[in-house]
């Protein structure tokens, strides 16, 4: 018997996988130009090649590198055919939950979300600890949705307090869910577990309805994206990011104030910018507070990902593969006094990359709050 040479092995086309792919994504639009490969920030530091990943998916194969994806959507933004590559990555991850081939640690993350309602495995009864001395009116149809990170992470709690303080200064009536709040589901969606994501959307929808919520203000862009997309299915409330809500308040003169004269550069979080198209409100907030904005070369839709999205907060990344340090250097290179952003993941990442050693890292709400008067 003659041994078949490797190259003559026929390519098998997995019809079932292809149909599932075509039904939930638009990956069949891809004409393999490779623009996305070049746009992907992982191309420099890892073997990730987005075009090849899509090709393999068309043959029913899953590139193990899908787990490194940060769902930053730099590829989506670059694709001439409008392929939703982030959607494809989530779809491929979802299939891996079926076959139980997911990275270590992710089932534990989901168990924590399922039973504790948060991504940290921390007690639900501590969820309102972020409030400390902040008083909340507890009335009205506006809800401040805090999210897991700003509820439990002491760094991000400061952002939540700043936003609450600004809403109070402006005399906005709003409520918070306190210990009843549960995860928005973005972490579950990003690692591909649609079942848990749907469950959380349902739980949140029920809670919003019970509380008569008509408008949700989120701290995290990840909650913003997940709730905005997820709640639309339920005809749910209007969902906005805090930078949008605060911009209105500052514009209408309900909050005023200036911070000492300094220059600031602003990092667009992927989920606020590329995913939801909110580029200007954070910039206007900074400028209305009297700060001078200096842009990085890669700004707005071209912003570079910090590396914290796509579930990467729960998967260890080799220091050489982390895009965060590059972004910190870029920010420092502008010569600005401060690096401001509007996402708790971005802040964690920049801080852990020792960002503050080269340029102090802060949050837009905190900057605005530091100078604000009612």
């Amino acid at each position, binding site marked *: 018997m003659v041994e078949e040479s490797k190259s003559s092995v026929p390519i098998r086309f997995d019809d079932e996988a292809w149909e599932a792919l075509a039904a939930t994504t638009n990956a069949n639009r891809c004409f393999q130009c490779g623009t996305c490969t070049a746009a992907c920030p992982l191309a420099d530091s890892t073997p990730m090649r987005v075009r090849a990943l899509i090709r393999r998916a068309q043959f029913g194969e899953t590139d193990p590198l899908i787990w490194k994806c940060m769902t930053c959507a730099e590829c989506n933004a670059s694709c001439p055919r409008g392929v939703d590559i982030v959607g494809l990555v989530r779809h491929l991850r979802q299939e891996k*939950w*079926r076959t*139980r081939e997911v990275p*270590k*640690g*992710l*089932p*534990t993350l*989901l*168990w924590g979300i*399922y*039973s504790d309602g948060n991504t940290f495995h921390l*007690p*639900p*009864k501590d969820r309102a600890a972020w409030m400390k001395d902040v008083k909340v009116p507890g009335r009205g149809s506006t809800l401040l949705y805090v999210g897991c990170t700003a509820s439990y992470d002491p760094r991000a709690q400061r952002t939540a307090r700043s936003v609450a303080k600004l809403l109070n200064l402006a005399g906005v009536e709003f409520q918070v869910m306190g210990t009843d709040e549960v995860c928005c589901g973005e972490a579950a969606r990003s690692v591909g*577990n*649609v*079942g*848990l994501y*749907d*469950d959380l959307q349902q739980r949140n929808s029920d809670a919003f309805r019970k509380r008569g919520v008509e408008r949700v203000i989120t701290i995290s862009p990840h909650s913003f994206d997940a709730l905005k997309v997820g709640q639309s299915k339920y005809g749910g409330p209007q969902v906005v990011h805090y930078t949008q809500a605060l911009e209105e308040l500052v514009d209408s003169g309900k909050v005023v104030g200036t911070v000492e004269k300094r220059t600031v550069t602003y990092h667009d979080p992927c989920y606020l910018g590329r995913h939801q198209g909110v580029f200007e409100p954070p910039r206007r907030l900074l400028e209305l507070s009297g700060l001078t904005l200096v842009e990085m070369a890669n700004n707005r839709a071209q912003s570079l990902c910090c590396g914290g999205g796509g579930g990467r907060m729960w998967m260890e990344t080799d220091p050489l593969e982390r895009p965060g340090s590059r972004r910190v250097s870029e920010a420092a290179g502008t010569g600005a006094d401060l690096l401001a952003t509007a996402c708790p993941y971005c802040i964690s990442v920049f801080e852990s990359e020792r960002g503050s050693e080269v340029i102090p890292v802060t949050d837009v709400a905190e900057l605005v709050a530091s100078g604000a008067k009612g």
Partner: protein
Amino acid sequence: MRIVVCMKVVPRPEEVKVNLETKTLDRAGARSVLNSADMNALETALAFRDAHGGTVAVLSMGPPQFEPYLRVALAVGADEAILLSDRAFGGADTLATSYTLATALPKIGGADLVVCGEESSDGGTSQVPPSIAEWLDASQATYVERIVAGKDGTTVLATRALEDGKETVELVLPAVISVVVGSNEPRFIDYDRWAFAQSAKVKVLDFAALGGDPQYLGLQGSPTRVAGLREVRKPGRRRELVTVTADEAAFRIKAEIERVGRVRS
């Protein structure tokens, strides 16, 4: 092979309050979870079934409110669920608990392998698994990290985590094992099984259906008594903050180390 996993629903430790005057535990209003080590037991059983075939049933003793938790185990992958529920079973210590669970086994189709968690987070005795083994006259291995099938289906090989190393024993079936907490990563709920898990019948056995010897059941059948309760540590961190000289800091830290050191496992 038929595998039965014994699972307990436990209150979250941070939500249990002690009433120091009445010396009773107040679990009312405390949220519950499936005991952590029992999740590792379930994973061990499911992985074994997936590799060698067979069925996995989950068995629990407790009030009817436990039923939704057993449905979670079904959604994770168990084939059936049984709840032993009767006021007569209440107040059981490890002797009565293990008797009740062991007595139920023949009534629910028996088991070649019973898999438990190493201990529960509330009682923490780790005595139930070896006790079940004794009631059944079965072989046993506790603190197991891994099991593999034996040669001809009459044994399993169990690797136990001991203080000084890892021991692998060959266990004659039927056997009872207890699984070390954290020895594997429990698979998450499979939402494709959700509808099945919600509609499946959870078999409930009461005292009449169990038909055990009342002298070993519930509070009355329990030889141990809780003579007292005391709070050794306030819930949460103490958060004592001091600014002192280095020598004094060292003194304080050393005192703390000695306090902890008295109770080392």
